[in-house]
Protein backbone atom coordinates (compact mmCIF):
# COMPACT_ATOMS: atom_id res chain seq x y z
CA UNK A 1 0.00 0.00 0.00
CA UNK A 2 1.24 3.46 -0.83
CA UNK A 3 2.52 5.51 2.06
CA UNK A 4 0.28 8.27 3.35
CA UNK A 5 1.63 11.79 3.03
CA UNK A 6 2.01 11.86 6.79
CA UNK A 7 4.09 8.66 6.77
CA UNK A 8 6.19 9.96 3.92
CA UNK A 9 6.69 13.23 5.76
CA UNK A 10 7.76 11.53 8.97
CA UNK A 11 10.14 9.24 7.10
CA UNK A 12 11.68 12.24 5.37
CA UNK A 13 11.86 14.30 8.54
CA UNK A 14 13.64 11.44 10.28
CA UNK A 15 16.06 11.13 7.39
CA UNK A 16 16.69 14.86 7.28
CA UNK A 17 17.13 15.15 11.03
CA UNK A 18 19.57 12.27 11.21
CA UNK A 19 21.73 13.52 8.36
CA UNK A 20 21.80 17.02 9.87
CA UNK A 21 22.93 15.48 13.16
CA UNK A 22 25.84 13.51 11.67
CA UNK A 23 23.92 10.24 11.78
CA UNK A 24 23.39 7.79 8.96
CA UNK A 25 19.80 7.81 7.78
CA UNK A 26 18.14 5.09 5.67
CA UNK A 27 18.87 7.18 2.58
CA UNK A 28 20.99 10.18 1.80
CA UNK A 29 18.46 13.03 1.89
CA UNK A 30 17.93 15.16 -1.19
CA UNK A 31 17.62 18.74 0.07
CA UNK A 32 17.67 21.04 -2.95
CA UNK A 33 17.57 24.83 -2.69
CA UNK A 34 15.52 25.55 -5.79
CA UNK A 35 14.64 29.15 -6.52
CA UNK A 36 13.51 30.20 -10.01
CA UNK A 37 13.97 26.54 -11.02
CA UNK A 38 10.80 25.71 -9.09
CA UNK A 39 8.93 28.22 -11.24
CA UNK A 40 10.41 26.72 -14.37
CA UNK A 41 9.13 23.30 -13.34
CA UNK A 42 5.72 24.69 -12.39
CA UNK A 43 5.41 26.73 -15.57
CA UNK A 44 5.77 30.16 -14.01
CA UNK A 45 8.05 32.99 -15.12
CA UNK A 46 10.64 34.50 -12.78
CA UNK A 47 8.35 37.52 -12.60
CA UNK A 48 5.50 35.34 -11.41
CA UNK A 49 7.44 33.49 -8.72
CA UNK A 50 9.14 36.67 -7.54
CA UNK A 51 6.25 39.09 -7.67
CA UNK A 52 3.21 36.94 -7.02
CA UNK A 53 3.53 35.39 -3.55
CA UNK A 54 0.82 32.83 -4.23
CA UNK A 55 2.45 31.54 -7.40
CA UNK A 56 5.93 31.70 -5.88
CA UNK A 57 4.89 29.44 -3.06
CA UNK A 58 2.68 27.30 -5.26
CA UNK A 59 5.66 26.66 -7.54
CA UNK A 60 7.52 24.90 -4.74
CA UNK A 61 4.57 22.62 -4.00
CA UNK A 62 4.20 21.86 -7.71
CA UNK A 63 7.91 21.07 -7.91
CA UNK A 64 7.60 18.64 -4.99
CA UNK A 65 4.67 16.98 -6.75
CA UNK A 66 6.37 16.85 -10.14
CA UNK A 67 9.74 15.56 -8.93
CA UNK A 68 9.48 12.60 -6.56
CA UNK A 69 12.29 12.15 -4.11
CA UNK A 70 12.68 15.66 -2.70
CA UNK A 71 13.08 15.02 1.02
CA UNK A 72 13.30 18.63 2.16
CA UNK A 73 13.36 21.94 0.39
CA UNK A 74 13.05 25.67 0.99
CA UNK A 75 9.47 26.90 0.87
CA UNK A 76 10.55 30.30 -0.47
CA UNK A 77 13.97 30.01 -2.02
CA UNK A 78 12.95 33.04 -4.09
CA UNK A 79 13.13 34.71 -0.72
CA UNK A 80 12.24 38.21 -1.83
CA UNK A 81 8.66 38.84 -2.75
CA UNK A 82 8.82 41.98 -4.82
CA UNK A 83 5.11 42.79 -4.62
CA UNK A 84 5.62 43.09 -0.86
CA UNK A 85 8.66 45.31 -1.30
CA UNK A 86 6.97 47.43 -3.98
CA UNK A 87 3.99 47.97 -1.68
CA UNK A 88 6.11 50.08 0.64
CA UNK A 89 8.48 51.40 -2.01
CA UNK A 90 11.70 49.46 -1.38
CA UNK A 91 14.42 50.88 -3.59
CA UNK A 92 17.17 48.33 -3.67
CA UNK A 93 15.91 45.67 -6.05
CA UNK A 94 15.77 45.27 -9.75
CA UNK A 95 12.46 43.49 -10.13
CA UNK A 96 11.74 40.80 -12.74
CA UNK A 97 8.97 42.04 -15.01
CA UNK A 98 9.57 45.68 -14.08
CA UNK A 99 13.24 46.62 -14.34
CA UNK A 100 14.25 43.25 -15.75
CA UNK A 101 12.77 40.87 -18.25
CA UNK A 102 10.10 38.56 -16.91
CA UNK A 103 12.54 35.65 -16.96
CA UNK A 104 15.45 37.29 -15.18
CA UNK A 105 16.20 36.77 -11.49
CA UNK A 106 15.76 39.68 -9.12
CA UNK A 107 18.94 41.61 -8.35
CA UNK A 108 20.09 43.52 -5.31
CA UNK A 109 21.34 47.02 -6.12
CA UNK A 110 24.05 48.06 -3.70
CA UNK A 111 24.52 51.82 -3.44
CA UNK A 112 27.92 52.63 -4.92
CA UNK A 113 28.76 55.93 -3.24
CA UNK A 114 29.04 57.22 0.29
CA UNK A 115 26.29 59.69 -0.55
CA UNK A 116 23.88 56.95 -1.52
CA UNK A 117 24.79 54.56 1.29
CA UNK A 118 21.89 53.57 3.54
CA UNK A 119 24.17 54.30 6.49
CA UNK A 120 26.80 57.04 6.40
CA UNK A 121 30.27 56.67 7.87
CA UNK A 122 29.51 59.34 10.48
CA UNK A 123 26.50 57.35 11.69
CA UNK A 124 28.41 54.48 13.28
CA UNK A 125 27.98 55.89 16.77
CA UNK A 126 24.22 56.18 16.41
CA UNK A 127 24.04 52.67 14.98
CA UNK A 128 26.21 51.27 17.77
CA UNK A 129 24.21 53.01 20.46
CA UNK A 130 20.91 51.56 19.30
CA UNK A 131 20.74 49.43 16.14
CA UNK A 132 16.96 49.05 16.36
CA UNK A 133 16.47 52.80 16.60
CA UNK A 134 18.73 53.17 13.59
CA UNK A 135 16.84 50.59 11.57
CA UNK A 136 13.46 52.08 12.40
CA UNK A 137 14.32 55.75 12.08
CA UNK A 138 17.15 55.93 9.59
CA UNK A 139 17.74 52.79 7.60
CA UNK A 140 14.25 51.67 6.68
CA UNK A 141 13.05 55.16 5.66
CA UNK A 142 16.15 55.54 3.48
CA UNK A 143 15.50 52.25 1.70
CA UNK A 144 11.93 53.24 0.80
CA UNK A 145 10.73 55.70 -1.83
CA UNK A 146 7.90 56.76 0.42
CA UNK A 147 8.98 56.56 4.02
CA UNK A 148 9.88 59.69 5.97
CA UNK A 149 12.21 59.65 8.98
CA UNK A 150 11.22 61.27 12.27
CA UNK A 151 11.83 65.01 12.35
CA UNK A 152 11.03 65.55 8.69
CA UNK A 153 7.73 66.71 7.26
CA UNK A 154 5.30 63.82 7.11
CA UNK A 155 3.49 62.71 3.95
CA UNK A 156 0.49 60.53 3.21
CA UNK A 157 2.74 58.20 1.26
CA UNK A 158 4.83 57.69 4.37
CA UNK A 159 1.87 56.73 6.52
CA UNK A 160 0.51 54.44 3.84
CA UNK A 161 3.92 52.81 3.32
CA UNK A 162 4.21 51.77 6.96
CA UNK A 163 0.63 50.51 6.94
CA UNK A 164 1.27 48.49 3.79
CA UNK A 165 4.55 47.15 5.17
CA UNK A 166 2.60 45.84 8.16
CA UNK A 167 -0.15 44.32 6.07
CA UNK A 168 1.94 42.88 3.25
CA UNK A 169 4.68 41.30 5.37
CA UNK A 170 2.13 39.95 7.84
CA UNK A 171 0.20 38.35 4.99
CA UNK A 172 3.41 36.99 3.52
CA UNK A 173 4.33 35.36 6.83
CA UNK A 174 0.92 33.74 6.92
CA UNK A 175 1.23 32.53 3.37
CA UNK A 176 4.63 31.04 4.21
CA UNK A 177 3.19 29.16 7.18
CA UNK A 178 0.26 27.90 5.14
CA UNK A 179 2.59 26.72 2.40
CA UNK A 180 4.85 24.85 4.79
CA UNK A 181 1.71 23.00 5.90
CA UNK A 182 0.69 22.47 2.27
CA UNK A 183 4.09 21.00 1.39
CA UNK A 184 3.69 18.60 4.28
CA UNK A 185 0.11 17.50 3.69
CA UNK A 186 0.04 17.55 -0.11
CA UNK A 187 3.54 16.31 -0.89
CA UNK A 188 5.00 14.88 2.33
CA UNK A 189 7.98 17.19 1.97
CA UNK A 190 9.85 18.80 4.84
CA UNK A 191 10.34 22.57 4.87
CA UNK A 192 14.10 22.48 5.15
CA UNK A 193 14.73 25.62 7.18
CA UNK A 194 13.09 28.34 9.21
CA UNK A 195 14.60 31.51 10.58
CA UNK A 196 17.23 33.41 8.63
CA UNK A 197 20.55 34.62 9.85
CA UNK A 198 23.21 36.86 8.44
CA UNK A 199 26.62 37.33 9.99
CA UNK A 200 26.76 40.69 11.79
CA UNK A 201 29.66 41.72 9.56
CA UNK A 202 27.73 40.70 6.45
CA UNK A 203 24.62 42.60 7.39
CA UNK A 204 26.71 45.68 8.02
CA UNK A 205 28.50 45.22 4.71
CA UNK A 206 25.47 44.22 2.62
CA UNK A 207 22.67 46.35 3.91
CA UNK A 208 24.13 49.32 5.76
CA UNK A 209 27.54 50.39 4.52
CA UNK A 210 27.91 48.46 1.28
CA UNK A 211 31.00 46.50 0.28
CA UNK A 212 32.98 49.54 -0.81
CA UNK A 213 32.04 51.45 2.31
CA UNK A 214 32.99 48.68 4.69
CA UNK A 215 36.26 48.11 2.84
CA UNK A 216 37.24 51.72 3.50
CA UNK A 217 35.87 51.64 7.06
CA UNK A 218 38.14 48.73 7.96
CA UNK A 219 40.98 51.20 7.52
CA UNK A 220 39.47 54.51 8.63
CA UNK A 221 37.44 53.36 11.64
CA UNK A 222 38.13 49.69 12.40
CA UNK A 223 37.06 49.99 16.04
CA UNK A 224 33.67 51.29 15.03
CA UNK A 225 33.18 48.48 12.53
CA UNK A 226 33.93 45.99 15.27
CA UNK A 227 31.63 47.70 17.75
CA UNK A 228 28.90 47.84 15.13
CA UNK A 229 29.12 44.08 14.58
CA UNK A 230 28.93 43.61 18.35
CA UNK A 231 25.92 45.92 18.64
CA UNK A 232 23.95 44.24 15.89
CA UNK A 233 24.82 40.65 16.85
CA UNK A 234 22.17 40.26 19.60
CA UNK A 235 19.51 41.39 17.15
CA UNK A 236 20.65 38.83 14.60
CA UNK A 237 20.49 36.04 17.14
CA UNK A 238 17.18 37.15 18.62
CA UNK A 239 15.44 37.43 15.26
CA UNK A 240 16.73 34.12 14.06
CA UNK A 241 15.55 32.34 17.20
CA UNK A 242 12.19 34.14 17.19
CA UNK A 243 11.46 33.06 13.62
CA UNK A 244 12.98 29.57 13.85
CA UNK A 245 11.06 26.28 13.81
CA UNK A 246 9.22 26.16 17.15
CA UNK A 247 9.69 22.38 17.26
CA UNK A 248 13.45 22.87 16.76
CA UNK A 249 13.51 20.04 14.23
CA UNK A 250 14.77 21.93 11.20
CA UNK A 251 17.76 24.24 11.11
CA UNK A 252 17.89 27.96 10.44
CA UNK A 253 19.95 29.23 7.56
CA UNK A 254 22.95 31.49 7.45
CA UNK A 255 23.55 32.87 3.98
CA UNK A 256 27.28 33.61 4.01
CA UNK A 257 28.72 36.41 1.91
CA UNK A 258 31.67 38.57 2.71
CA UNK A 259 33.61 36.08 4.79
CA UNK A 260 34.42 34.13 1.64
CA UNK A 261 38.11 34.16 0.95
CA UNK A 262 37.90 36.32 -2.17
CA UNK A 263 36.74 39.42 -0.35
CA UNK A 264 38.91 40.11 2.69
CA UNK A 265 42.10 38.88 4.29
CA UNK A 266 42.17 36.14 6.89
CA UNK A 267 43.01 38.81 9.47
CA UNK A 268 39.83 40.69 8.68
CA UNK A 269 37.84 37.49 8.91
CA UNK A 270 39.38 36.60 12.25
CA UNK A 271 38.97 40.02 13.78
CA UNK A 272 35.76 41.43 12.31
CA UNK A 273 33.71 38.59 10.91
CA UNK A 274 34.21 35.50 12.95
CA UNK A 275 33.86 36.56 16.62
CA UNK A 276 30.27 37.78 16.39
CA UNK A 277 29.26 35.11 13.90
CA UNK A 278 30.59 32.50 16.32
CA UNK A 279 28.77 34.10 19.22
CA UNK A 280 25.48 34.28 17.35
CA UNK A 281 25.77 30.70 16.10
CA UNK A 282 26.43 29.51 19.65
CA UNK A 283 23.44 31.41 21.01
CA UNK A 284 21.21 29.87 18.39
CA UNK A 285 22.60 26.44 19.18
CA UNK A 286 21.98 27.03 22.88
CA UNK A 287 18.35 27.69 21.92
CA UNK A 288 18.29 24.21 20.39
CA UNK A 289 18.63 25.21 16.76
CA UNK A 290 21.18 24.14 14.18
CA UNK A 291 22.39 26.61 11.55
CA UNK A 292 23.03 25.78 7.92
CA UNK A 293 26.21 27.59 6.96
CA UNK A 294 25.38 28.16 3.33
CA UNK A 295 28.90 29.14 2.35
CA UNK A 296 28.56 30.96 -0.96
CA UNK A 297 31.86 31.10 -2.84
CA UNK A 298 35.13 29.69 -1.51
CA UNK A 299 35.86 29.39 2.19
CA UNK A 300 38.81 26.99 2.32
CA UNK A 301 41.16 29.25 4.26
CA UNK A 302 38.56 29.97 6.93
CA UNK A 303 37.16 26.47 7.36
CA UNK A 304 39.38 25.66 10.31
CA UNK A 305 37.75 28.37 12.42
CA UNK A 306 34.38 26.67 12.20
CA UNK A 307 35.81 23.72 14.14
CA UNK A 308 35.55 25.96 17.22
CA UNK A 309 31.77 25.65 17.06
CA UNK A 310 29.98 23.01 19.14
CA UNK A 311 29.71 19.66 17.40
CA UNK A 312 26.54 19.41 15.27
CA UNK A 313 25.72 23.08 15.81
CA UNK A 314 26.00 23.71 12.07
CA UNK A 315 25.50 21.97 8.75
CA UNK A 316 28.15 23.18 6.37
CA UNK A 317 26.99 23.73 2.82
CA UNK A 318 29.78 23.67 0.31
CA UNK A 319 29.66 25.83 -2.81
CA UNK A 320 32.93 26.41 -4.66
CA UNK A 321 35.17 24.66 -2.17
CA UNK A 322 36.42 21.14 -2.79
CA UNK A 323 33.77 19.15 -0.92
CA UNK A 324 36.29 16.40 -0.20
CA UNK A 325 38.51 18.93 1.53
CA UNK A 326 35.51 20.29 3.46
CA UNK A 327 34.63 16.75 4.53
CA UNK A 328 38.22 16.20 5.69
CA UNK A 329 38.35 19.42 7.72
CA UNK A 330 34.83 19.55 9.15
CA UNK A 331 33.22 16.17 8.51
CA UNK A 332 33.91 14.74 11.96
CA UNK A 333 32.02 17.58 13.65
CA UNK A 334 29.34 18.73 11.21
CA UNK A 335 27.11 17.39 8.48
CA UNK A 336 27.90 18.68 5.02
CA UNK A 337 25.79 19.32 1.95
CA UNK A 338 26.29 20.22 -1.70
CA UNK A 339 28.54 18.69 -4.30
CA UNK A 340 26.71 18.91 -7.64
CA UNK A 341 28.11 21.79 -9.71
CA UNK A 342 25.55 24.25 -11.05
CA UNK A 343 27.47 24.37 -14.31
CA UNK A 344 26.84 20.68 -14.75
CA UNK A 345 23.14 21.18 -13.96
CA UNK A 346 22.91 23.98 -16.51
CA UNK A 347 25.12 22.65 -19.30
CA UNK A 348 25.62 18.96 -18.61
CA UNK A 349 23.44 15.96 -19.29
CA UNK A 350 21.43 13.75 -16.95
CA UNK A 351 24.05 11.01 -17.24
CA UNK A 352 26.74 13.40 -15.95
CA UNK A 353 24.53 14.36 -13.04
CA UNK A 354 23.71 10.78 -12.14
CA UNK A 355 27.38 9.86 -12.22
CA UNK A 356 28.29 12.75 -9.93
CA UNK A 357 25.47 11.96 -7.50
CA UNK A 358 26.50 8.29 -7.39
CA UNK A 359 30.06 9.29 -6.62
CA UNK A 360 29.06 11.70 -3.84
CA UNK A 361 26.74 9.16 -2.26
CA UNK A 362 29.34 6.42 -2.50
CA UNK A 363 31.99 8.60 -0.90
CA UNK A 364 29.93 10.35 1.78
CA UNK A 365 26.82 8.25 2.29
CA UNK A 366 28.27 5.44 4.37
CA UNK A 367 29.47 7.84 7.09
CA UNK A 368 26.14 9.63 7.39
CA UNK A 369 26.01 13.40 7.85
CA UNK A 370 25.71 14.14 4.16
CA UNK A 371 22.86 15.83 2.27
CA UNK A 372 22.64 15.96 -1.50
CA UNK A 373 22.29 19.41 -3.05
CA UNK A 374 23.70 21.52 -5.83
CA UNK A 375 26.61 23.81 -5.02
CA UNK A 376 24.51 26.96 -5.23
CA UNK A 377 20.87 27.99 -5.26
CA UNK A 378 19.27 26.66 -8.41
CA UNK A 379 17.89 29.30 -10.73
CA UNK A 380 16.26 29.19 -14.14
CA UNK A 381 19.44 28.07 -15.90
CA UNK A 382 19.22 24.58 -14.40
CA UNK A 383 17.84 22.05 -16.88
CA UNK A 384 14.74 20.38 -15.50
CA UNK A 385 15.89 16.96 -16.73
CA UNK A 386 19.12 17.38 -14.80
CA UNK A 387 17.25 18.23 -11.63
CA UNK A 388 15.04 15.18 -12.10
CA UNK A 389 18.17 13.09 -12.69
CA UNK A 390 19.56 14.34 -9.38
CA UNK A 391 16.43 13.24 -7.55
CA UNK A 392 16.31 9.91 -9.34
CA UNK A 393 19.97 9.16 -8.70
CA UNK A 394 19.47 9.88 -5.03
CA UNK A 395 16.55 7.44 -4.93
CA UNK A 396 18.56 4.88 -6.90
CA UNK A 397 21.86 5.04 -5.04
CA UNK A 398 20.95 6.79 -1.81
CA UNK A 399 19.91 3.75 0.24
CA UNK A 400 23.33 2.63 1.32
Amino acid sequence: MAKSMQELYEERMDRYWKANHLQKPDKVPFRPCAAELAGKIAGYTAQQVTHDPDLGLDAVVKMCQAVPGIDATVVNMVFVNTSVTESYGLKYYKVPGIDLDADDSFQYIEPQTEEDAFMKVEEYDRFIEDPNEFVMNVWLPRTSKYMVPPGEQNTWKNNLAWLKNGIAIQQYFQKLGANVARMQTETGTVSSLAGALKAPFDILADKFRGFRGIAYDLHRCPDKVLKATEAVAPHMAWNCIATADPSRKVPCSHWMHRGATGFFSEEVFEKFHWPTLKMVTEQIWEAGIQTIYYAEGKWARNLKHFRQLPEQSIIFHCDKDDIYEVKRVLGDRFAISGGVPNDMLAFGEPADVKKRVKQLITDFGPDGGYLLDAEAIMQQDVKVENFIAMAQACEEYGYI
Partner: protein
Amino acid sequence: MQESKSVPGVCFPWEEKKKEYAEIKGDEEVVKAWWETYDVHAYVHLWFCVTGL
Protein backbone atom coordinates in the same frame (compact mmCIF):
# COMPACT_ATOMS: atom_id res chain seq x y z
CA MET B 1 -25.91 62.72 -5.96
CA GLN B 2 -22.69 64.38 -4.85
CA GLU B 3 -19.70 63.42 -6.96
CA SER B 4 -16.65 62.61 -4.88
CA LYS B 5 -13.03 62.37 -5.94
CA SER B 6 -12.30 59.26 -3.97
CA VAL B 7 -12.93 55.88 -5.47
CA PRO B 8 -13.89 53.15 -3.00
CA GLY B 9 -11.12 50.59 -2.64
CA VAL B 10 -8.31 52.90 -3.70
CA CYS B 11 -5.73 54.79 -1.63
CA PHE B 12 -2.82 55.14 -4.04
CA PRO B 13 -4.10 54.62 -7.57
CA TRP B 14 -2.18 52.33 -9.91
CA GLU B 15 -2.13 55.08 -12.55
CA GLU B 16 -0.07 57.19 -10.12
CA LYS B 17 2.17 54.32 -9.07
CA LYS B 18 2.82 53.36 -12.68
CA LYS B 19 4.39 56.75 -13.37
CA GLU B 20 7.27 55.77 -11.09
CA TYR B 21 8.37 53.11 -13.57
CA ALA B 22 10.34 54.09 -16.65
CA GLU B 23 9.17 50.87 -18.22
CA ILE B 24 7.43 47.67 -17.23
CA LYS B 25 9.38 45.01 -19.08
CA GLY B 26 7.22 42.03 -18.21
CA ASP B 27 3.55 41.43 -17.54
CA GLU B 28 2.05 44.70 -16.33
CA GLU B 29 -1.08 42.95 -15.10
CA VAL B 30 0.89 41.03 -12.49
CA VAL B 31 2.46 44.21 -11.15
CA LYS B 32 -0.84 46.08 -11.21
CA ALA B 33 -2.78 43.25 -9.58
CA TRP B 34 -0.47 43.03 -6.59
CA TRP B 35 -0.13 46.76 -6.18
CA GLU B 36 -3.90 46.96 -6.06
CA THR B 37 -4.15 43.96 -3.74
CA TYR B 38 -2.15 45.67 -1.02
CA ASP B 39 -3.73 49.03 -1.76
CA VAL B 40 -7.19 47.54 -1.27
CA HIS B 41 -6.04 45.99 1.99
CA ALA B 42 -4.80 49.37 3.20
CA TYR B 43 -8.14 50.91 2.23
CA VAL B 44 -10.06 48.19 4.07
CA HIS B 45 -7.89 48.77 7.17
CA LEU B 46 -8.62 52.50 7.09
CA TRP B 47 -12.36 51.99 6.81
CA PHE B 48 -12.37 49.16 9.31
CA CYS B 49 -11.08 51.78 11.75
CA VAL B 50 -14.03 53.98 10.79
CA THR B 51 -16.82 51.44 10.77
CA GLY B 52 -15.51 48.52 12.81
CA LEU B 53 -13.62 50.08 15.70
